[in-house]
């Protein structure tokens, strides 16, 4: 939806801003302008400088050089409080509401902290109610926010941001935790705000969304401004990707289906976890990428954990290469060649304080008689990582690596164990575009080598682009199988929600 650009003066000008941290030039002479009444997207890979820029605007950091101008006046904020007082409000990715308090309290109290002096509660409450109404909040404003959905909490955050009389609203990854319906509602609200002449800076990895609602796009890469252009000058996602990544990347092509030589590798029958998963049966063949699609909470992760032996309460049968096997714990799953890359990399994939080499060889550290050969550990890891197009010192602690690289370390672990069956649970969540496509290519590569790939994904474009087969799970049951051309966003959503 394109939007006529009004010829107004810029409300926020970023002029030649640079900021360095030890060892990295986070921002390098960045300049661009944000106008009132526009939705301005800020794009960039992880590490490109987006969050540093936002924090510098917001007063968390001080720029080394350069200035900001608000309505033509030079300002540098010494703290977020100052930024807020000057009309800039930010809704962070991790929501910052106080869970035990209700919506009204959260809004009013946020405000209270900004101004000294006494509060006129009834006045403040009225204003909060009006903000919530304007936003289209339909919940109970007097209920404690912990009982509300993420989408509603987000609305409260926006209402709170607006209650500071902000004119510039920064939204950081606002749709990462929303369903597509809730996202559409958010877009309506954001567009309404635009009509009310707010300037909205919209940070997101979801390029489709960006193209849908944004008027202008600024792309950062390696701390530098790559481009700041209006929407009509952008041809499509690949344009944005090219700016963000610096090279052309295309989504991997799906091979044409060859159903004749299908070799069954893994078969699950009557998998049941009381109350969570109901009689799920599926077959997985060598060389294909199968996706478990479904809503959050539909039981997909539980299915996959059960296959991995991590859930003792599950019942059912598992057949590996047509022979019945028992998987009692993760160790036996590993021994049978099953690799599970969990959803939350940090909590369930990596030991953050250990090196990449240690993490990658954790299931079977190389060495005899209980000793570890660090040399072998490092060379095996480096080898696996180079297959994944990652070249860095493997003795680096994984905490210091980017999300995409961390995912590669986890993947390296399972390459090293020579697994046959790779289960990916949300493999590219929170990973930037460049790394995302690399991981897709990797999965396709593994499939071509004859491995079995089972993927859980809630990212519909990813599901469509990557899967050979889609198994839709709804409320713990397998409700629909989509093959090849049948795989469309509409079909997946249809069966995932109602069927």
């Amino acid at each position, binding site marked *: 939806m394109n939007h006529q650009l009004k010829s107004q003066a810029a409300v926020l000008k970023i002029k030649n801003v640079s900021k360095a941290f030890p060892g990295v030039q986070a921002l390098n002479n960045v300049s661009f302008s944000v106008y009132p009444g526009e939705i301005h997207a800020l794009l960039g890979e992880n590490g490109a400088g987006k969050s540093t820029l936002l924090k510098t605007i917001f007063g968390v950091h001080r720029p080394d050089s350069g200035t900001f101008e608000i309505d033509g006046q030079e300002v540098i904020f010494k703290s977020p409080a100052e930024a807020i007082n000057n009309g800039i409000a930010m809704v962070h990715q991790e929501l910052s509401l106080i869970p035990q308090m209700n919506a009204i309290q959260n809004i009013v109290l946020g405000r209270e902290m900004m101004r000294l002096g006494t509060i006129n509660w009834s006045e403040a409450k009225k204003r909060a109610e009006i903000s919530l109404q304007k936003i289209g909040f339909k919940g109970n404003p007097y209920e404690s926010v912990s009982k509300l959905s993420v989408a509603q909490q987000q609305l409260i955050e926006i209402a709170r941001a607006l209650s500071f009389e902000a004119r510039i609203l920064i939204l950081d990854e606002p749709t990462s935790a929303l369903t597509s319906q809730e996202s559409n509602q958010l877009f309506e609200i954001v567009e309404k705000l635009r009509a009310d002449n707010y300037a909205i800076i919209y940070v997101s990895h979801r390029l489709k969304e960006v193209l849908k609602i944004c008027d202008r796009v600024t792309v950062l890469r390696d701390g530098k401004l790559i481009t700041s252009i209006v929407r009509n000058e952008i041809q499509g996602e690949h344009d944005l990707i090219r700016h963000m990544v610096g090279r052309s990347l*295309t989504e991997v092509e799906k091979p044409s289906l060859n159903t004749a030589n299908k070799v069954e590798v893994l078969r699950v029958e009557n998998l049941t976890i009381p109350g969570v998963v109901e009689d799920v049966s599926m077959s997985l063949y060598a060389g294909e990428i199968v996706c478990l699609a479904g809503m959050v909470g539909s039981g997909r992760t539980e299915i996959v954990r059960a296959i991995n032996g991590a859930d003792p309460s599950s019942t059912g049968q598992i057949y590996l290469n047509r022979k019945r096997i028992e998987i009692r714990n993760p160790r036996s799953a590993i021994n049978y060649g099953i690799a599970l890359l969990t959803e939350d990399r940090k909590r369930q994939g990596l030991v953050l304080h250990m090196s990449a080499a240690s993490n990658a060889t954790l299931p079977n550290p190389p060495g005899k008689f209980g*000793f570890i050969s660090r040399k072998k550990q490092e060379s095996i890891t480096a080898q696996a990582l180079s297959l994944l197009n990652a070249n860095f010192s493997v003795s680096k602690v994984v905490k210091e690596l980017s999300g995409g690289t961390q995912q590669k370390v986890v993947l390296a672990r399972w390459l090293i164990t020579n697994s046959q069956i790779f289960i990916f649970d949300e493999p590219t969540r929170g990973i930037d575009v460049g790394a995302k496509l690399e991981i897709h290519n990797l999965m396709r590569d593994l499939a071509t080598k004859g491995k079995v790939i089972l993927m859980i994904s809630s990212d519909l474009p990813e599901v469509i682009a990557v899967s050979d087969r889609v198994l839709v799970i709804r409320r713990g049951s397998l409700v629909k199988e989509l093959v090849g051309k049948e795989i469309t966003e509409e079909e997946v959503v249809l069966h995932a929600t109602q069927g």
Partner: protein
Amino acid sequence: MSKNLIESNNPPVVSPRTSSSSVLRRGARQGALLIVVIMLIVYFGLLNSYFISSQNIQNILLQATIVGILGIGQTYVIITGGIDLSIGSIVATATVCSGIFSTHTSPVVAIVGGILVGVMAGLVNGLLIVTTKITPFIITLGTMGIYSGLALIISGGQAIYGIPTSFQHALAGKAFGSPVPILLFAFLTTLSVFVMKYTKFGEYLVAIGGNPEVATLAGISVRRNTAYAYVVSGSLAGLCGAILAARLGAADPNTGSDLLLVAIAATVMGGTKLAGGEGSMVGAAFGAILIATLTAGLTSLNVQAFYQKVAVGTAIILTILIDQFVKGRRR
């Protein structure tokens, strides 16, 4: 591999570094501890020239031995994210048993007996912790009481005298020109550094403490390795019990109550995080030496024991504060 599917330039290569920053940080911490020890020695030496004599340094190291060895044992346990509050009581039981053995059998049996007491105590700790889901803090709090009661029961509440000199020489005498306890301390520190760096056991402990879920998913036997950590802690405490009996020439069932907190302090000062996943054996050793230096120095100034306790406690807090400060600045 995927080159025919993506047009890409070679992705940028990150220039390799030979060591990760956390190793550097830990090295810096150990270095800092050593510097503080040296500064203290110089300071006290200026006030009392005897302080710098080699005899005195040896005394300090000797004083540091028990706490140091306990600290090392505690480091294994704390790295896994747990804690062993029973080490003081294990020392008491082991010293009593070792003392009794020494009066009836050869020194070797007495030494081994003391260690075995520790092994069994540690085993009980370990099994209780991995089979029940109760936190190590509570379990070892309980066993702390049980083992100290055992020590009193076995000894009849009385100190055991008449420890034969053969035993005393064996464990508290000199070998290769240095007191045996110091040699043991040095050996155990070096051995533990090696274990953490070059054995799978050490790797597993760090993984278990850092992220037990990941460790499980990687197929590591979390229960077995965690239990082993407590066995190690217990056996080192048992060894300390034997050493104490040899040094004092008597076995006192009431030992150990002071030792626990100082041992944990040494461990924490050495850079081991109570949350687990990170730790330094050398750090624990240096921590013990620092505390021993401080105590000795204050004694040389005739500061009363009560004030010494305050000083040591303050030093512990200061170390942690400085640690926080340095970490904060790095951001």
